[in-house]
């Protein structure tokens, strides 16, 4: 069992990946804040199933094929596929640009807090494992 198979860690990993991806989308919005006819994008929040551990609906994982009985199912790099969202903005400038820079700044700050929260929980979970291992 790999460390990433632990449900809480994989859930947190999905959350962190989502925040990373969202940061990229928000950076695109801010960089194109003066481009004519540019529409702001955002990411839909990841959906976690009630029963399952990982965000199976939001993330499509690519698993290694096991062709021999001795093979172990590894965990490859799974590029997270999050849905991109386009919400109608409050204001559209005469050039057709619909980026509200204050709104984007708010989102960047919120995203950063999200990431910090998730990474703090990740660290705590790791230290739980360390405690179980008997490390002082």
């Amino acid at each position: 069992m790999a460390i990433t198979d632990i449900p809480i860690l994989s859930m947190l990993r999905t959350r962190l990946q989502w925040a990373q991806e969202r940061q990229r989308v928000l950076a695109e919005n801010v960089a194109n804040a003066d481009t004519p006819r540019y529409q702001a994008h955002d990411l839909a929040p990841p959906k976690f199933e009630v029963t399952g551990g990982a965000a199976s609906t939001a993330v499509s994982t690519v698993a290694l094929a096991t062709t021999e009985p001795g093979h172990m199912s590894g965990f490859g790099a799974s590029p997270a596929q999050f849905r991109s969202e386009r919400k109608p903005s409050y204001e559209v400038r005469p050039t057709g640009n619909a980026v509200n820079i204050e709104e984007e700044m708010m989102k960047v700050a919120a995203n950063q807090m999200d990431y910090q929260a998730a990474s703090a929980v990740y660290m705590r979970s790791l230290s739980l494992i360390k405690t179980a291992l008997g490390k002082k």
Partner: protein
Amino acid sequence: MDFMKTLAIAASGLRAQAGRMRIISENIANADSTPSSPSANPYRRKVPTFHTELDRSLGVQLVELGKVQTDQSDFRLKYEPGHPAADKNGNVKYPNVNSLVEMADMREAQRSYEANINVVTATRRMLMRTIDILRA
């Protein structure tokens, strides 16, 4: 890694806004550049354009400074009979630069630049949090 993409996007935004500042400063510096003869035209105001550019190696949408265009509005006429460029009525053509408009444009460029800097700072902080997981 997504954070590197984010930084690349924010850097493209910074570059575009810096180029815009360069054009604005050109306009302000040349606000009184009169022609040397009555038949010639004075300095024509330049207008920066932005467009979205897909970076194929990163797979992200960067922003780029497009072709610099010229403002086609009329030149200012000033009555200065002693000027070498004065026509037979004593009028001299001055550039179609309005310093008030340039100042407003400069503020906007400054604000967009700061917004991009903000994204870089937030992303760096998130990156440092990721590295902190390793340290824990």
